[in-house]
């Protein structure tokens, strides 16, 4: 009721204002009073050209009077970055809306709620040509209000300057909508720094570890890059899920053009964003990359799925606009830092500043994952389901395997222990943290902690507050499950593991609302008051973000914030492990498993780069998917050496797991892998001795399949993936091998 009332009120208010034709009224009565006292409305209709708006010791921001495009002068590099291509009039490849969009500060998609389908407009053709623009100035910022006549809305964009760069925000809580029109998405500054088809350079997109798209690479027949930050929102239904994509872990993108470059970070509203890039030849002659924000979530309901004959999709839309502030901050880079390594270092600095963290020396070289117990359900006489928690690796076995690894030469390791808690295994809300008796119980845990400490190993108990199959402890599906766009309890279907089809025979699951996560985590932590020296590892919450449309004003961004807070809560002794490693857990995580090793190998992207690794290096150790599940071990191992990653193995003391639940862990027997553990540990130890725990500094492509990584202490590693020996800079690297070069002399591999 409240929501309806609010909506009607706003509607009436805006309607009245529009009817009276007083656009000035909005500006004066509604907006100006909230901005800085010294602000003044800049006069419209002055002479052509840019007007200086903001200035500090390094940058000058100017605004074009008639096109409202932005220029950002970086005095340190003498570079000017424009929000729109300056030679756009000469583009012969762009027509119609594409041509108009070249002038735009943003592109909107919207819908008329009386009609089917969505439509697109942009700030140039919809507002500058068919509406009005007003500028409100402040001390360190100014806001441009775009009024669209045809779709009766006002969108304010605020530009703010500080010492690092320029922030551009959609002031979403001041967006005014009226009539039957609803805004859906906004693509912000689509052509900021875009490279023309005559320029050289590349775009960085955050696909997995990071990926480069070279300007004008000609791949116009492939699907262009466009991916959601933090991956798919589990609250939105999916017809089939067969994707094998790497998730976007970091809300960043960047452009390097000639010798210049900038990094863009989505600093607010990252969970609502997606990053898209396109190369010249797709609609126009420019290579562009930008962020698009979801103002309203859309969902699909499939009618007729149960009867199975013909189905029809119904589009559902979020009722209220996401009122988050949505910000992209552009960090112009200085001379030697303009490549992707420089972008990664700039992002690392940004993370340190934002999350108040400092770069530390890496200690461990191994992330060991051990499977505690597994839930196995068998049908007694084909009818009675008997559910057992089958112990796989108890604490005695944990101590034994860690001991074995120690003997094999693993010096320091982080042990992730999965499947130790009854509630977790049964799919309940994990409000208690008692260790299964069959694994050794809390006593076993304490003894293991002691033994492991002697072995320089840290134990991380894996915990998750995500997928729920049974409700308990006062949490019910009604009060604690996430809700869909139309306010229904979300049932997450099981997607066939390999083909991606919905499997109707597997019961659906729910997801614990992020609103509840902190209180659950607090209860969970109470169980560990007497065991202060245990650390935790986070599962899904570090790699997935669901929306919850059940609570007014709660957006996916609030979910991410709740997860960030919760992660902080579970950080003990300054240690926290996380799976996947989304940007928001970098506020607290010190070890990341299943981090992205490469990009997704999209056809449109050209090369995979270790942006993620350089950015995270020094904040957390990282490892990739378990080596013992890799098909091609050696290639993967070389990638570890190239990117300074920890080794990751997943073992179980009882190796014959016949349950389908763990059939993806098809090689758990540690004995089979001990020779590889020894071989790889020796290599990793050698590398660690050379780098002394310093973080990564840069990464270079020397030639095809030959890469060089440099550490902050000057150590260099050259990896050759080719099937033949290569000689680079007078250094011979054997086929599918590597060389470590220390600052003093040449160490060899």
């Amino acid at each position, binding site marked *: 009721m409240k929501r309806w009332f609010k909506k009607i009120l706003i509607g009436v208010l805006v309607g009245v204002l529009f009817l009276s034709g007083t656009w000035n009224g909005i500006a004066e009565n509604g907006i100006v009073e909230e901005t800085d006292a010294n602000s003044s409305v800049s006069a419209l209709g002055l002479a052509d050209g840019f007007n200086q708006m903001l200035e500090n010791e390094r940058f000058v921001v100017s605004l074009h009077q008639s096109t409202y495009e932005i220029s950002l002068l970086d005095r340190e590099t003498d570079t000017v970055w424009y929000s729109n291509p300056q030679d756009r009039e000469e583009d012969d490849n762009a027509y119609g809306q594409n041509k108009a969009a070249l002038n735009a500060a943003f592109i909107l998609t919207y819908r008329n709620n009386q009609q089917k389908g969505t439509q697109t407009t942009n700030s140039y053709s919809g507002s500058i040509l068919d509406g009005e623009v007003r500028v409100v100035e402040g001390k360190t910022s100014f806001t441009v209000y775009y009024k669209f006549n045809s779709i009766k809305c006002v969108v304010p964009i605020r530009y703010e300057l500080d010492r690092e760069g320029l922030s551009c925000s959609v002031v979403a809580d001041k967006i005014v909508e009226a009539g039957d029109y609803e805004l859906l998405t906004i693509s912000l500054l689509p052509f900021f720094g875009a490279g023309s088809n005559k320029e050289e350079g590349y775009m960085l997109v955050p696909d997995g570890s990071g990926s480069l798209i070279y300007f004008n690479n000609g791949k116009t*027949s492939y699907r262009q890059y466009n991916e959601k930050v933090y991956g798919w929102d589990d609250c939105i239904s999916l017809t089939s899920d067969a994707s*094998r994509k790497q998730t976007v872990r970091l809300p960043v993108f960047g452009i390097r053009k000639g010798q210049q470059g900038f990094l863009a970070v989505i600093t607010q509203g990252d969970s609502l964003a997606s990053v898209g890039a396109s190369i010249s030849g797709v609609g126009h002659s420019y290579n562009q990359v930008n962020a698009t924000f979801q103002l309203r979530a859309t969902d699909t309901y499939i009618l007729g799925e149960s009867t199975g004959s013909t189905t029809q999709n119904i589009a559902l839309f979020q009722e209220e606009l996401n009122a988050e502030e949505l910000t992209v901050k552009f960090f112009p880079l200085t001379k030697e830092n303009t490549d992707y390594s420089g972008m990664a270092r700039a992002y690392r600095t940004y993370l340190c500043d934002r999350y108040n963290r400092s770069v530390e020396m890496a200690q461990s070289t191994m992330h060991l994952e051990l499977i505690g117990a597994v839930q196995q359900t068998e049908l007694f006489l084909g009818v009675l*389901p008997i559910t057992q928690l089958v112990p796989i690796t108890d604490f005695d076995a944990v101590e034994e395997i860690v001991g074995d690894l120690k003997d094999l030469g693993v010096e320091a390791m982080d042990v992730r222990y999965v499947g130790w808690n009854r509630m977790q295994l049964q799919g309940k809300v994990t409000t208690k943290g008692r260790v299964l008796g069959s694994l050794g119980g809390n006593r076993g845990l304490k003894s293991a902690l002691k033994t492991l400490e002697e072995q320089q190993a840290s134990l991380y108990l894996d915990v998750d507050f995500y997928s729920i199959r049974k409700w308990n402890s006062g949490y019910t599906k009604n009060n604690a499950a996430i809700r869909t766009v139309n306010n229904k309890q979300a049932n997450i279907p099981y997607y066939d593991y390999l083909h991606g089809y919905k499997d109707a025979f*597997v019961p659906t*699951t729910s997801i614990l609302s992020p609103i509840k996560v902190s209180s659950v985590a607090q209860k969970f932590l109470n169980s560990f008051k007497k065991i202060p020296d245990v650390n935790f590892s986070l599962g899904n919450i570090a790699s997935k973000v669901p929306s919850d449309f059940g609570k007014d004003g709660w957006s996916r961004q609030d979910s991410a914030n709740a997860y960030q807070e919760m992660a902080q809560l579970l950080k003990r002794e300054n240690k926290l492990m996380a799976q996947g490693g989304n940007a928001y857990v970098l506020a607290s995580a010190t070890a990341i498993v299943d981090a992205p090793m490469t990009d997704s190998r999209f056809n449109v992207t050209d090369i995979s780069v270790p942006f993620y690794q350089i950015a995270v290096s020094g904040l957390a150790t990282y490892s990739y998917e378990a080596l013992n599940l890799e*098909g091609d071990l050696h290639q993967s191992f070389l990638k570890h050496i190239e990117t300074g990653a920890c080794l990751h193995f997943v073992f179980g003391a009882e190796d014959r797991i016949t349950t*389908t639940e763990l059939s993806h862990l*098809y*090689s758990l027997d540690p004995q*089979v892998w001990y020779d590889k553990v020894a071989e790889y540990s020796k290599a990793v130890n050698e590398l660690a001795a050379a780098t002394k725990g310093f973080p990564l500094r840069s990464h270079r492509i020397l030639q095809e399949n030959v890469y060089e990584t440099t550490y902050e202490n000057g150590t260099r590693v050259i990896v050759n993936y080719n099937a033949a020996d290569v000689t680079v800079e007078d250094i011979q690297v054997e086929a599918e091998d590597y060389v470590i070069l220390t600052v003093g002399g040449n160490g060899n591999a």
Partner: protein
Amino acid sequence: MLKRLICVVVVIVMLFPVGSVSAAELYTYTYNYDYWGNAIISPDGYIVSDVINGEHLGIGAFNKPADLFVAEDRIYIADAGNDRIVAVNADGALYRVYDTFSFNDEVITLDNPQGIFVNKNGQMLIADMNNQQILRVDQDGNVLHIYAQPEESADFNYTGIDFWPMKVIEDRNGYVYVICQDVYQGALVYRADGTADGYYGANLVETTMNLLADMLWRRFMTVEQRKKMTSYVPNYYNNFYIDEEGMVYITTQTSTSGKNQLRKLNPKGTDVLPAATTLVAAYQNKYGDLETKYVNGIANQSQLVDVVADENGFITALDANRCRLFQYDSQSNLLFAFGAPGYQEGFFVKPVAIESLNGRLYVLDETKGDITVFSTTSYGDLLHNAITSYNNGNFEEAKPLWEEVSKKNQNLTQANITLGKLYYEEGKYEQAMAYLEEGNAQAYYSKAFKEQRNILLRRYGFPIISVLILAGVAWTIFKKIYFRRHPVTEKKKKNTYFHRSLRTMVRPVASYGVFLETHEFSVKHSLLYVSALFVAVCCNDQLSGFAFSGGGSKQFNILMVFAQVFGLLFLWTAANWAVSTLLDGKGRLKEIWVVTSIATLPYTIVLVLNTILSNVLTLEEGSFLSYVLLIGLFWSVMLLVVGLMLLHEYSLFRVLFSGLLSVACMAIVVFLIVLFMSLFGQIFGFATDIANEMILRF
């Protein structure tokens, strides 16, 4: 329908969570199938090592490339949209572009070349489709011969409407085989001298129930109605590959059941590809994905479009519909299935051709206009080596390899079977049995079981037999002494209800007569007998020896058995009562039930016997066991017939007639139940849909 019913029951039963731990990100995109045909994850056997496209070669993008051929370390691409043949060296560098050819000093060009083949002498055969001819060209682009549409002759009849050659190969003897559009007789064959020589590997129309029903319908249709129906054309060949030994591998278009989409034909044209041992019988001879997904009522299944085989007999087929590759060994066992639709490396949009060179796979995508190169991973090499050394008979070399395979991929059925066989060869029968049971290899298990049993017999046979003989002798002596002291005066005849029931087995007429005379029909006893049958069926399912039962016992469901035994007998009783009431039978419901239940006794006994014997006999020895069961069944039916004759006071003919009617009656009831359940499901779905639509739209 029945399947749906079973599904409904299964769903009701499965009110518990299975496998719903939200999966972490996938480690791999490769899978295999377990024995029951469930897709199961596998380590990658191949990964993308390179992507070749026209732009990188500097010759402009490929335009709808149609075919690929590898010869002498060179890759030939039929770039159909650009009317040219492109040759690329194995290292990925451009060798030559053939866009014009000279024929008798004339320059000729191609029009939509769909197929390319290169023989040992480096001569190219180009299926120049829109020019309706096949060119034989040397490496310098000189046309040596042109094959045109064959002329009609007395012993040859070209059946196509027009001549549209699509794919072409040549065998060692210079015979040229051509797949033409609209020709369903098989591949057209030209002799070495260029004259047509009939068809090769004639393709048969698949006989399915649908087809038969369809043919029946057609008989009752008017000509117009018939025209509207889709015509059934034979499955026709869409692509082929010839190996060093002259074996021809063929992929087939449109197969309703999806079976036999892949064939390996010998020079005579017969399919010699064996059925896979790693799959349950229902899926044997099925290539590509095993399951079919229905989207809006339309079947979405694998469609193989090309195949390649390497010198070790590994066959890789390409699925255009699902954008996947399937690699089989020479025994049709699936090694890897991988690939998916998408714009990523290793993903396809419209893959059309596959070739292999030096252990690498080359896949051509028509829409993307590129060639994806796959090379083996360390796991792929391991599995290949393991299979090759086993097939070559190097068991000593094979065993450690297979052990490693099994440790690195526990999901592989083939590893269990092969290890079982290897242990068998070593004489370690106990381990062999364990592996073979895991791999569901019944026949081989039985062999190992025989050897193991012989060992046990040799070890314990003498003492056991000695003890038995001694016990027998002792019993005889004891009896003699006992009867001498207690002479039998009158042999007591045991005459309880149970004894009389048992006696029906040998003297049906007399014993049933006693029941009818005394009017003693005990429902309590009859329930006991049927329960005994129920228990016997369960035991037979669960306790039979593995050699006989296979892994089927794992899919046992006691409720289903209960429904089968009790439900079927109740239904029979009711149906027979209804029928006999109409046919002036004397029997009442209770009496029919009791007579029926007594008649089950022989079958129960035989089932128990069967269960026991299956645990001590091998498959060969036990081949008579199925006959024993049949005899038991026949015995029971005979008892039932006699019992009903006496009960209803019917003639034999009348009993059989009423029996048949009862069975028909039962069928109708089952049909109605299924219909009702299905209808109910539909109505329920419809109602929920309407409700949802109302809520969502208003």
